[in-house]
């Protein structure tokens, strides 16, 4: 399957815009993008600056540029809590990593059923699934806590991970349903004619063709699980089980002494894994279709 040839063809047949006009458009696009990027970058720059500056300057200084630079907050922050951040990172990786696997598997299965299979009461179950999205979690928190406590799961990672393997987040099911329904129906019909089981259709056709949405689900799951603090706050009781986000929150207590320098240093550092995860998986998002051999 050639990818480049049709693209070249497009350029030739469009014909009308001169190279000069093309370049102007391109420059305008870049200027727009760079301008917008600065807006987007400002918070990170501020965060970085705050992590390098003296503590008592963080809230009083108007300038983004620190009066003096120091890596002190990073060392202080990393070892500042009783348990080092190394443990928190490991915990966060385990929870987020397992969540990605669970969500992608379980939600894609459920979505395949809703999007491609026919069964009784499908609309009813789909509506129930959507309903779980609509109730604010604040009011199910305590019954859920009681449930997990009866299961003996409090103070373990299980309440944070097991629901992901049981497709508890309807967001991802709904997301995948929308994408699966966009895939040409003839594919499964042809496969069905050839005697393919639904499982083979799911595994051999739908999953390989859905890399963009699976990558999207992986990215969101990883980042949102990484950023979540409320679940870990409620279910993890010992500091050596803490996640990075929960560790970050223990830097600040609004009523007493807080290590803001350490907070900002560790906040900046906590962005690194999710940023790298994003960079890596967005390649899948973009290349997905091309590598599966479908028409591009």
């Amino acid at each position, binding site marked *: 399957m050639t990818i480049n040839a*049709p693209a070249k063809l497009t350029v030739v*047949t469009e014909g009308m815009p001169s190279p000069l006009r093309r370049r102007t458009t*391109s420059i305008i*696009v870049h200027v*727009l*993008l760079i301008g917008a*990027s600065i*807006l*987007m970058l*400002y918070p*990170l720059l*501020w965060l970085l600056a*705050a992590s390098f500056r003296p503590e008592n300057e963080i809230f009083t200084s108007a300038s983004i540029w620190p009066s003096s630079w120091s890596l002190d907050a990073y060392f202080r922050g990393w070892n500042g809590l009783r348990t080092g951040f190394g443990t928190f990172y490991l915990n966060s990786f385990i929870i987020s990593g397992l969540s990605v696997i669970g969500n992608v*598997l*379980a939600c894609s*299965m*459920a979505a*395949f*059923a809703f999007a491609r*299979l026919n*069964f009784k009461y*499908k*609309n009813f179950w*789909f*509506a129930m699934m*959507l309903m*779980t999205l*609509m*109730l*604010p979690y*604040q*009011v*199910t928190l305590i019954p*859920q806590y009681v449930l997990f406590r009866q299961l003996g799961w409090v103070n373990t990672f299980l309440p944070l991970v097991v629901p992901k393997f*049981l*497709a*508890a987040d309807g967001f991802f*099911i*709904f997301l995948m349903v*929308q*994408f699966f*329904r*966009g895939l040409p129906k003839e594919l499964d019909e042809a496969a*069905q004619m050839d005697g393919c089981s639904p499982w083979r259709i799911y595994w051999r056709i739908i999953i390989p063709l859905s890399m*963009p*949405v699976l990558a999207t689900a992986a990215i969101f799951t990883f980042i*949102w699980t990484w*950023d979540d*603090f409320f679940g870990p706050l409620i279910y993890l009781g010992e500091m050596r089980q803490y996640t990075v986000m929960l560790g*970050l929150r223990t830097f*600040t207590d*609004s009523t007493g002494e807080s290590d803001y320098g350490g907070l900002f240093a560790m906040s900046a550092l906590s*962005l690194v894994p999710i*940023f790298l995860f*994003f960079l890596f998986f*967005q390649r899948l998002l*973009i290349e997905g*279709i091309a590598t599966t051999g479908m*028409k*591009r």
Partner: protein
Amino acid sequence: MTVHSTIATPIEQAQRPSVWSRIWQNDAPGYLFLLPWFIGFFGLTIGPMITSFYLSFTNFDLLQAPQWVGASNYVRMFTADPKFSASMRVTLFFVIFSVPLKLAFALAVAMLLNRGIKGLPMYRALFYLPSLLGASVAIAILWRQIFAGDGLVNKLLALFGIIGPSWISNPNYSLWTLIILSIWQFGSPMIIFLAGLRQIPQDMYEAASLDGASKWRQFVKITLPLLTPVVFFNAIIQTIEAFKSFTPAFIISGGTGNPINSTLFYTLYLYQEAFGFFRMGYASALAWVLLALVGLFTAFSFLTSKYWVHYDD
């Protein structure tokens, strides 16, 4: 949402179908694929939901056993609770302005980033950065740096001789700073739009440009129709999320919803009632009213979707 299975399988053609084999053929695969979800739904989700529904008819102070009070929580909400109506107004305002703006912005940027320009992964990553920050404490501090009386915005306005108020803490504008925050974190819908754009077969554009269709015509005739499932998804999800929006107001107003309750989002009020003032029964009633409202909206959206959402099936 019906999926038509018009083609009979070879097995069905070969045998006289019994009731059970038809169920096995038609219904069983669906239910098997849904098995993990069913375990989660019945094992972990539905119990706490039913409990919270029950609690909405009680006085439950978290620390003592709940007492049945009938519908009085609901009655109070609609007859004697000014904070309920205030928080509902704030939330509706937020939904109405933040959702369309955020979606339009996300789609525009996704279109821009879908072009074959250099440095694309870098731009994508930069635009996603604000969304990475999530509910970080740093956001609250940053937003003050920008929207306080001596913040960045007013310094820019001062260049034009305008003396601005403290946007973030003025009851007339504070909600807008949260709407801007929500739009600024447009990364998630942008990525979903991008993934959707990537799924549109490129040859359709090639055919269209061979026919001499303009870029705008291509957008209207190809991109938008094929993107409607994703637009539909983003619109529903963003609306539900906006109705449930909690974190921005929580971190920026320190959980108070001030100034003068101008950022008292519905779920923030619910949270205050539940954990601040020990009224979990009332909070549960608030939650179920929200669920009814959002559910009605979603049902309506699904009913109208068949007129504008284009599926391949």
